[in-house]
């Protein structure tokens, strides 16, 4: 919090102090503020303050909207120029956006790397061009990791494992149970890793998961989940692996008259309501606001002070359930 207060003060005075050895110093007078960071030029030391922040999905999705909000708030606090772009779920377009960013020469770039190979060439080209690259939400190992300076996001597999353990403990699942895991895009890394985490926990009781693609359209997700539940009466529990199936699962169960235990990923107003009513036992919140905010904040620190970004597990190790739902309810859909 003190840092935020300092940064806030700094953003209204986008100027610098004496930054030794930098050739990119602002020529405006220093801000009359306390704090070494501000006196050293936090929020104004680097001249090129443009950060290109690439969203891989539609910002109309509340999850991605919250990431955007975090990024915008940090940009305002740290006085950086934020260029938000989206490929709206098109991987080819996303790769083009990374390529365009290299040509545009921003000071820093925030990317979602949802494929181990697809973006490597452009991400590494950006890094070679001197653009600071930070991954958020999803990242990869291997060559592409060498061209990024860190990652801000949830450890998907760990969160899946936590949820799976919680399900076994609370729902008393029988040996060999069948668990339905609907998800927007089953082929994407977040879905595969979350499912792997859930499955890893379920292995202890010989239970099996099955994924169904729902897309991000609420009505379509509702239809597919309802029809699946009708055709699979032996489902013992449901773990929605993404925000769209999660916020529609209660309606789907009501539509077909099914009542089984649910734990899931990502928060929204309907999920909060489900936790309060007891339909949803627990939710793993990957805290998208932190993914947007910390990504931009770390890049700003990199630009002004050349501080190397750290890898941050935005989700932490906690789950949202009846015991703490009141705390997050007020902020659901905006900050959480």
């Amino acid at each position: 919090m003190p840092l935020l207060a300092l940064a806030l003060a700094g953003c209204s005075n986008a100027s610098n102090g004496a930054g030794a050895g930098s050739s990119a110093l602002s020529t405006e007078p220093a801000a009359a503020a306390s704090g070494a960071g501000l006196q050293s030029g936090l929020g104004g030391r680097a001249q090129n303050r443009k950060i290109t922040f690439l969203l891989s999905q539609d910002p109309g999705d509340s999850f991605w909207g919250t990431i955007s909000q975090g990024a915008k708030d940090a940009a305002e606090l740290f006085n950086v120029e934020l260029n938000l772009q989206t490929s709206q779920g098109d991987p080819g377009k996303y790769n083009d956006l990374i390529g365009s960013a290299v040509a545009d020469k921003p000071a820093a770039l925030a990317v979602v790397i949802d494929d181990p190979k697809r973006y490597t060439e452009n991400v590494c080209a950006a890094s070679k061009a001197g653009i600071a690259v930070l991954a958020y939400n999803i990242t990869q190992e291997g060559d592409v990791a060498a061209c990024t300076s860190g990652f801000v996001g949830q450890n998907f597999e760990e969160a899946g494992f936590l949820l799976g353990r919680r399900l076994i403990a609370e729902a008393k699942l029988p040996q060999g149970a069948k668990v339905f895991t609907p998800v927007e895009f089953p082929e994407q890394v977040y879905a595969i890793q979350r499912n792997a985490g859930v499955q890893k926990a379920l292995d202890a009781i010989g239970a099996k998961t099955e994924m169904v693609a729902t897309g991000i359209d609420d009505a379509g997700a509702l239809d597919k989940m309802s029809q699946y539940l009708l055709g699979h009466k032996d489902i013992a529990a449901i773990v929605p692996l993404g925000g769209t199936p999660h916020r529609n699962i209660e309606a789907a169960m009501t539509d077909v008259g099914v009542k089984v235990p649910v734990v899931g990923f990502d928060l929204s107003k309907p999920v909060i309501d489900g936790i309060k009513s007891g339909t949803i036992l627990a939710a793993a919140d990957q805290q998208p606001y932190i993914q947007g905010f910390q990504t931009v904040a770390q890049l700003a620190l990199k630009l002004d002070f050349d501080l190397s970004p750290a890898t941050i597990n935005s989700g932490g190790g906690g789950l949202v359930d009846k015991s703490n739902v009141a705390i997050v309810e007020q902020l659901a859909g905006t900050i959480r």
Partner: protein
Amino acid sequence: MSNTTSGGAPSPTMEDQPTTAIPARRVRTEPFGGWLRLVRGRGALEIGIIFVLVQIGCVVAYLVAPDSFPYLSEANFNVLSQSIPVLAILAIGAGVLMIAGEFDLSLGMNYTFCALVFIHWYSSGDVIGAFVVTFAMGIGIALLNGVIVTRFKIPSFIVTLGMMLFWDGAALFYNGTSAARMQRGETLQTIFAGQIGPFRGQVVWLALVAVFFWVLMHRHKLGNHIFAVGGNESAARAISINPTRVKLIAFGILGLCVALAAILVAVRTQSVQPGTGRGMELQAIAAAVVGGVSLRGGKGSVLGMVLGAALILVLQDILLLSGAPGFYLNLFIGVIIVVAAVFNRLIEGKAE
């Protein structure tokens, strides 16, 4: 003006006249024997045959194993009666415009924008305003496409592709990035999503829209004009039909259907994201084509459009009920759309 066939297509041109002499070799090589020629040009008959066969198969499967394939269960009717009407109403809008010889690729974004407008106005407490503005937006967006297409003589494919992107961005600009949410009142729920026996209220809206447009397209002069303009614009003009006026009406019909579908989906889910309708235009066009609407204009039937939409969603239902691997659902749906379209073409007896 010539009489329409049961498929609704007038015959102002030679193209639609019955073939008087079929070469012997053609008869021998025609698929499924010569009887298929008897059902040519009968609109929804082809898709109707497929649909009935599928339904018979489903009923038999249900009777054999009601627990593992609950096709006739009340819960399944509940789901289908909520999902089919939205796609079917969009297919009617897209299909009528296709019969007039035009496309509207901005249908999906128009649908999204209308749903967002409805939620925002309804949430602000202005219920009447919500309906008025939503229908005005839906029809207005489609008519704007129509005016640009007819006034500047640009292919509708290009115009509406551009407008699709425009309204996609406009939805974000209007709504912001978060999903729009509403709390529906009981009256609204009863009217648009109420329980009617094993079905939901959306079915009633589909029936009203389908009957209205069936009468309009197949039993009214305006329908004749739409078929005539789509079939052969020059010939239609020669018999004093104004193609520009007819096409604008067809665009307006699409807008009306889009607005109604948007209201149905908004009331059902009470949550709409700016990206919701992306791809819906292709689903609506696919449903119309599966239902026998010609991509070249001038041919099709309202019943076919409804059955096309129903068939696609029923087949998705069958796949999910019967435990097909959910991971590969789109693979099956894609194959089904292509197979149905090929079957239509074969049964028309026009495959080259």
